[in-house]
């Protein structure tokens, strides 16, 4: 799936691979629901909340809320956490 310059106010969940191009804003819960799923961001994405088990690949991630990845490792090139750490 590819999202480009979208605003997601509802629920967003992936179990496979998703590419975010350009700026995307997620104002509700986003779930990366299965191990092996990946979220690749070419632009900037702002998440209010991300709950995931399979994020492995991020270029840029801006969080206004919480990021819960369980015990899964992931790599982020540029991180800007605006909320509580």
């Amino acid at each position: 799936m590819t999202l480009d310059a979208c605003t997601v106010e509802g629920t967003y969940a992936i179990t496979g691979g998703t590419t975010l191009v350009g700026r995307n804003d997620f104002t509700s819960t986003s779930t990366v629901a299965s191990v092996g799923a990946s979220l690749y961001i070419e632009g900037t994405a702002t998440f209010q909340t991300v709950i995931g088990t399979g994020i492995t690949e991020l270029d840029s991630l801006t969080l206004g809320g919480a990021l819960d990845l369980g015990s899964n490792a992931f790599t982020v090139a540029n991180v800007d956490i605006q909320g509580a750490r």
Partner: protein
Amino acid sequence: MYASSHTRRAGRRTALASLGMNRGIAPSPKQRALRIEPLEARMLLSAISWKGDSGYRTDPNHWSGGVVPGPADDVTIDVPGITVTVSSSAPQSVRSLYSTATLVIDGGSLTTATNSEIASPGAVDVQAGSLYLGGGESTGTFQVAAGAGLGLTGQVLGPTSSVTGAGG
């Protein structure tokens, strides 16, 4: 800065002279020849709506006017509860789409060029192939099977919307 009236007059004389049109000199027949400029291409946009119960997008009997909509058409499928199936190996496109039905993509691709809306209770189920939506605001749901594609550009997915599935 404004040019002086002397400068403007001199400029006008120079321009007229370059055209051989100074006062007292008649334009040549070549200069009087008619010029024909080609018109730009025009695209006739039309609004086309779905008729009747569930069916396939490529069935002309389901469309107002009896013609399957194409790239220049604004399409409305405002019949909640029905299923419209897109099943083609060839790429298909429309200008815009408004749908309250369930749209199933089970092959090929469907692309909208501009503002499109999947309105609740409308839904999209991409089982195979791909759906690409231009801008707009949707309140319906999107389900994408493994290996299938969903591309959203400039869409606002409202609070009642959801995007789920594996995708390609």
